């Protein structure tokens, strides 16, 4: 057999993995390396030359107060959104696995927001906040509702959080549902025979065994919220007065609006590192205490 010759190996690899390798390198590896190089230049996006400027972009990023503000705002938004997404998702998962009538219908229904892109969702909610809620508020003369929440900085942030919770809760619910179903019913029954109420059995037996679902949902919501762009663009567009510009939008503007590609890329890298460190730490801590059934 010719199985071990070099030409056989190269041939097999090229036929089967060649296209994947080329696409992966062309779209991910090359831009990643080129991006590192860009952070050391002061390219404006148009000119042929890319003047080398050393660490200037990183210094500019470190001194960019607007960037750090956006990053802080993103961290705040992420923490609140992650907490509420997971609370709502877990609650819904508990309800739709309790053997209630029509649970499949509810599962399918709560998932609907995930089918639709962030741009469209953002505009739908913009209508809700700007028109529908205002109209309700004026009809019942209830002060806090009679002007649009999107018009104030705090309100815009609240709107972003509400939409994110609404958008992701259904998806995370599905993961928690899978978690609930993976815990064997006999364990619950054993706990109930030992005198637990149903809710005690849920919280002391089922939940600890679902730890991997929690780790996974937290990781997914954390990374998604940290990098959110679509909803931010359509719902608030960073308004009012740039008070709701989240980190990803700031990076986008830095490069494609102000044409500071080097600084933008340096800030994108900082954003990525922060996000990766938080995500990986969370997974590490979460996995460490996993319980074996």
């Amino acid at each position, binding site marked *: 057999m010719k199985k071990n010759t070099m030409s056989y190996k190269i041939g097999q690899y090229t036929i089967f993995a060649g*296209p994947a390798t080329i696409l992966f390198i062309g*779209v991910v590896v090359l831009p990643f390396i080129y991006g590192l190089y860009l952070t050391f230049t002061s390219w404006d996006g148009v000119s042929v030359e890319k003047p080398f400027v050393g660490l200037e972009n990183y210094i500019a990023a470190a001194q960019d107060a607007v960037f750090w503000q956006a990053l802080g705002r993103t961290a705040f938004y992420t923490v609140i959104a992650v907490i509420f997404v997971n609370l709502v998702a877990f609650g819904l998962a508990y309800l739709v696995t309790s053997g209630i009538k029509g649970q499949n219908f509810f599962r399918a*229904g709560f998932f609907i927001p995930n089918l639709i*892109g962030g741009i469209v969702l953002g505009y739908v909610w913009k209508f809700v906040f700007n028109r529908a809620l205002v109209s309700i508020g004026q009809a019942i003369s209830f002060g806090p509702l009679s002007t649009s929440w999107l018009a104030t900085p705090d309100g815009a942030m609240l709107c972003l959080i509400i939409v994110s919770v609404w958008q992701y809760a259904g998806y995370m619910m599905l993961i928690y549902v899978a978690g609930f179903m993976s815990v064997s019913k006999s364990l619950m029954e054993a706990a109930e025979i030992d005198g637990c109420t149903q809710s005690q059995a849920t919280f002391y037996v089922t939940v600890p065994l679902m730890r991997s679902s929690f780790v996974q949902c937290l990781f997914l919501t954390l990374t998604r919220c940290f990098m959110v762009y679509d909803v931010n663009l359509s719902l608030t567009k960073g308004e009012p007065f740039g008070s709701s510009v989240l980190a990803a939008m700031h*990076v986008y503007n830095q490069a494609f609006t102000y044409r500071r590609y080097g600084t933008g890329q340096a800030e994108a890298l900082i954003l990525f590192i922060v996000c990766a460190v938080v995500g990986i730490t969370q997974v590490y801590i979460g996995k460490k205490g996993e319980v074996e059934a």
Partner: protein
Amino acid sequence: MTENEKAARKKVISHAIMMVILIVVFILFIFPFLLVVINVFKSNGDITSNPLSLIGEHGFTTANFPEAMKSMDFLVVFRNSLIVTTTSTVLTLLVSSMAAFVIVRNKWKACALLFAGMIASMVIPFQVLMIPLVSLYGGIFGVLNSRITLILMHTGFSVSMATFMFHGAIHTNIPLELEEAALIDGCSRWQTYWKIVFPLLKPTIATVAIIDAMAFWNDYLLPSLVLARKELYTIPIATQAFYGTYSTDMGLVMAALLLAMLPILILYLFLQRYIVEGVTSGAVKG
């Protein structure tokens, strides 16, 4: 009342409470969609004066649809989205399942390196790659503004995750004996792959196809950076452009938003079970 009756009664009450909570939350969940559906049949004036009324003062109208379809170029945009999504999805499925096959079945250094690189790359968010992507392919190679570039980029970004999932499926679900039998019967590796392995990967193919097709269909950022020519726009970019131009006429906006949501909602109506299953198994393995 016996203990059993008490317990049964308690169960009925707790189920009733849970049902009420679920129904309330469900209504809150679909409230935004309901609003769009209600207002799409009203004129702009009626929407402004009362967005909550079921039927506007000036009555029921379907005039918003043809106008929105025309100014959004909906049929063209829909076709563009369809072409980009299906081609990218099929390409991702072929390219990554083949790569996964050679990676699982051979202990070669190149395979290990590729697979490690792919896994590591899964933590990199798109925002880190978008600026160099634009400057490389726009500035240096000048190949932006083409549908083929968008399709190849979509595929390139999803190939890591897809290869990872096919890797798991081939590793655990495809018995080596089958391939050995095929080899003895005179099949080449290529034939073995297409006749034996690929058909057995159906469940994973479905999962990957659903996850990636949804992601491609809804993606905004990458297409917005790649496509500048209006006749190539996909639904999300067209929606964004439409809102920029017509944001004062809410009737048209409602129609455009509904049109943008309709295709995938209709699909969900028929494939709901598969989509929910696909998304769940994709998330749990990923």
